[in-house]
């Protein structure tokens, strides 16, 4: 009798185990599936947000000569025309591009500039007045080609909502005050720029 009882008990146990197993499996499967679906839809939202958000251009302008002031301003204003967002971080000599006492008189170096269309030997390039001459030459070519002036490009940048960030540290080092900068500039440090650049599709250093 006890043997039969034992067998029955074992059979019942087995059935019970099977039933619990299948219920448990079903439940786990459902749970996993719903978690996966949640995860996938979150990822899809993320991808969609990435695809629909504006492309972002982050530019560092580190040089203060006339020829090096153009690229960041041209690229940033064009970015705005292409429905992208952009910021320029003006640091070191690049700060001159947004210095209201200097931005209209940026110069082209005549010394150590082998790219001058009329190549100037360095020994001549070092003579007084050569920088002024090189600057005049470049300005006249730019005028002839109807290239926008630096101040026009800055205006376009400001109108298009491009962030123009002046480097705080450079200002401190060079004794530049906020009132020395043109209007519409925000002041920040490398972290301010990097926070913006971290999400940039196109980071550029000029």
């Amino acid at each position: 009798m006890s043997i039969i009882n034992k067998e029955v008990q074992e059979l019942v146990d087995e059935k019970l185990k099977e039933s619990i197993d299948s219920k448990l499996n079903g439940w786990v499967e459902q749970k996993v599936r719903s978690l996966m679906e949640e995860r996938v839809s979150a990822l899809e939202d993320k991808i969609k947000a990435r695809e629909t958000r504006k492309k972002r251009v982050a530019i560092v302008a580190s040089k203060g000569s006339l020829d090096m002031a153009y690229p960041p301003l041209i690229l940033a204003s064009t970015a705005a025309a292409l429905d992208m967002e952009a910021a320029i971080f003006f640091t070191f000599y690049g700060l001159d591009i947004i210095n209201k006492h200097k931005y209209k008189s940026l110069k082209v170096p005549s010394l150590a500039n082998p790219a001058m269309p009329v190549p100037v030997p360095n020994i001549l390039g070092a003579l007084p007045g050569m920088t002024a001459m090189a600057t005049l030459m470049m300005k006249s070519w730019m005028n002839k080609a109807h290239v926008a002036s630096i101040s026009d490009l800055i205006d376009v940048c400001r109108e298009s909502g491009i962030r123009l960030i002046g480097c705080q540290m450079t200002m401190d080092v060079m004794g530049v005050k906020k009132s020395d900068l043109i209007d519409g500039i925000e002041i920040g440090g490398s972290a301010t720029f990097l926070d913006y650049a971290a999400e940039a599709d196109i980071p550029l250093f000029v």
Partner: protein
Amino acid sequence: MSVQVNVKLDCKGLSCPLPILKTKKAVDGMNVGEVLEMTATDPGAVNDMAAWSHRTGHALIEHKQENGSFIFYIRKTR
């Protein structure tokens, strides 16, 4: 070409990036569906306008070359 032009923009003599900047400004001031005729002499504008249209989604319906000028027809799409 029998497209009805709503706005004309003269960018003759201007260099990069002015034709693009002025085109963008002109299109911003138009209604969806209207067509802009932009004339430029900068040969770089041919590729630049194609890139601009690709990026912004505004349709570059046609461009042609006439007497050393490049003429672009752009329909505002959104």
